[in-house]
């Protein structure tokens, strides 16, 4: 007999998917995110114009040749929007990764070890929660320069407290569960308890939160680029909107389409995050009056 039957894991994944797919918004969000991810990956191979080529006429309205028109320098807006996907998604997922890692590690240490660890980490978390991230990033980007890596790092390092708080709360409640006590009783080491039993069990609510963080990081980056503080070497939707905003009275398409791209990307992420939060939190599920 095989004990490591993965049927149960598969079953639970299938169960999860069956529940998830009842959330229409979540399904739409998932499919559209998959398409956007695909675009980001294959964009160099797509039969589109070079996004930096200025050989076309300026301010050409949307037409069959240029579906989204051209901008003030005569660049094709559609191909710039498609290339911009890369910037937004890297910032979004990069920052969320940094913030989740920092949050998970700090939060679980605070919750599990308690005492002085908890005291120190919780105070730091509280302070970071009160730091206006956008303005700190703005300050740092204007003084230190605005390479994409700075942007990712700074967004990541200012948004980890929400993850840390969730993980800490989860850890605190899991720590009182018998199976964690049981680990101590059988003599498991602290790192084994933490990494094999505690964090994997505490991570569920963080997943939804991290997806939402991807969304908010994309918005943050757009705002930053809108102020001219984005990475100058990359095509960014926020910067495109800023450039287009000057010509909003005559050539609306320059600012409109990159904004639409932000809305679709962020909304997909938000819908996925929201659906996950609903499925993972039984208290929000449909039941009773």
């Amino acid at each position: 007999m095989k004990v490591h039957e993965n049927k149960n894991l598969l079953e639970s994944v299938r169960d999860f998917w069956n529940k998830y797919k009842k959330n229409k918004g979540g399904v739409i969000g998932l499919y559209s995110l998959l398409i956007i991810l695909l675009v980001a990956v294959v964009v160099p191979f797509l039969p589109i114009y070079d996004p930096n080529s200025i050989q076309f006429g300026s301010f050409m309205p949307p037409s069959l040749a240029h579906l989204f028109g051209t901008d003030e320098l005569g660049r094709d807006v559609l191909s710039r929007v498609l290339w911009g996907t890369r910037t937004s998604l890297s910032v979004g997922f990069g920052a969320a990764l940094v913030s989740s890692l920092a949050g998970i590690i700090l939060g679980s240490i605070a919750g599990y070890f308690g005492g002085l660890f908890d005291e120190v980490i919780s105070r730091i978390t509280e302070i970071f929660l009160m730091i206006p991230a956008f303005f700190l990033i703005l300050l740092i980007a204007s003084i230190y320069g605005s390479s994409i890596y700075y942007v990712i790092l700074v967004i990541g390092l200012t948004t980890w407290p929400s993850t840390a708080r969730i993980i800490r709360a989860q850890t605190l409640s899991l720590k009182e569960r018998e199976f964690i006590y049981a680990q101590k009783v059988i003599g498991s080491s602290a790192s084994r308890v933490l990494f094999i039993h505690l964090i994997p069990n505490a991570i569920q609510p963080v997943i939804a939160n991290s997806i939402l963080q991807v969304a908010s990081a994309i918005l943050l980056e757009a705002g930053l680029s809108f102020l001219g503080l984005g990475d100058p070497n990359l095509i960014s939707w926020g910067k495109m909107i800023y450039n287009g905003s000057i010509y909003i009275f005559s050539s609306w398409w320059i600012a409109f389409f990159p904004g639409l791209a932000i809305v679709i990307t962020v909304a997909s992420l938000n819908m996925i995050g929201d659906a996950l939060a609903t499925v993972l939190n039984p208290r929000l599920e449909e039941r009773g009056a």
Partner: protein
Amino acid sequence: MSLLEVCKVSVEYKTWNSKIEALNDVSFSLSHNEILGILGESGSGKSTLALTIMKALPKNAKVRNGKIIYKDKDLLNLSESMLNSIRWKEISIVPQNSMNSLSPVHKIGDQLYDILKLHNPSIEKKEALEIIKEKLTISNLGENIVDKYPHQLSGGMRQRVLIATSLLCEPKIILADEPTTGLDVVTQYQILKELKELQDKIKFSMIIISHDISVIVNISQRVLVMYNGQVVEEGKTQSILEEPMHPYTKALFEVQLMVGRIKKEDLKIVEKQDNKIQNFENFSGCVFYFRCPFATQRCKNENPRLTKVKNEHSVACFLYG
């Protein structure tokens, strides 16, 4: 003559991927001034029964069929407003004790006043307060409770507040759903004793629901044993004590440990593997089949009906015809 008549009530829950039958053809009656005990383990449908009577089932539950007759009216067919005139005034409930059985951000006095006012719209605040304090007092609580919030009370005190709440409108019937679960032995004893004394003093009918056989037999005059959504045995407490018939009831009695009577040898009980793994879908036999030591082929194919065996003592088991 009976006060409340429950006839062939079936209730099912719909979850996101399946249907669960919580009650199956449950029938019983309740007389004036009677204490009826409903005994069953978790999942036996006993709490669903209380919610059905109060018509407060969650949205995903459906009453498939049946009637609940009170004063010539079928509670299951009443309009919301008619129902609200019966709720609490005629039938009230002591809900399962939890931290949030009452609103955590309102004072207890205010919450009780709101409930009282629902059924006596013209009542003056002062008079209402009088009644509330009286109900708190007879439930063995101090009058100062009215200014407290639920979280400031101990488990036992919260349970007494819930009892006082159920008494507010002097109902004819009180349903007590697991009134002592989660309390320690001493408090459990005191609450049960108080409930019994109140029933004796004020005279009302009571349905007490519990998974604890010793609670049920010590307080009720008649007992209904439920298993998996069905009534498997019903009778006077004395009669059931003298001769439990259904194998499940027998098992429950047998596993009772008695203080002061240490058995030198192990208790032998009718325990089979418990049945979480078993599949009930499309099973038409007896609900206790999977755990019953006396099960036969007939039990697998056919579900026995509740049949009267003795005077006021019925059982649903083929061992008794």
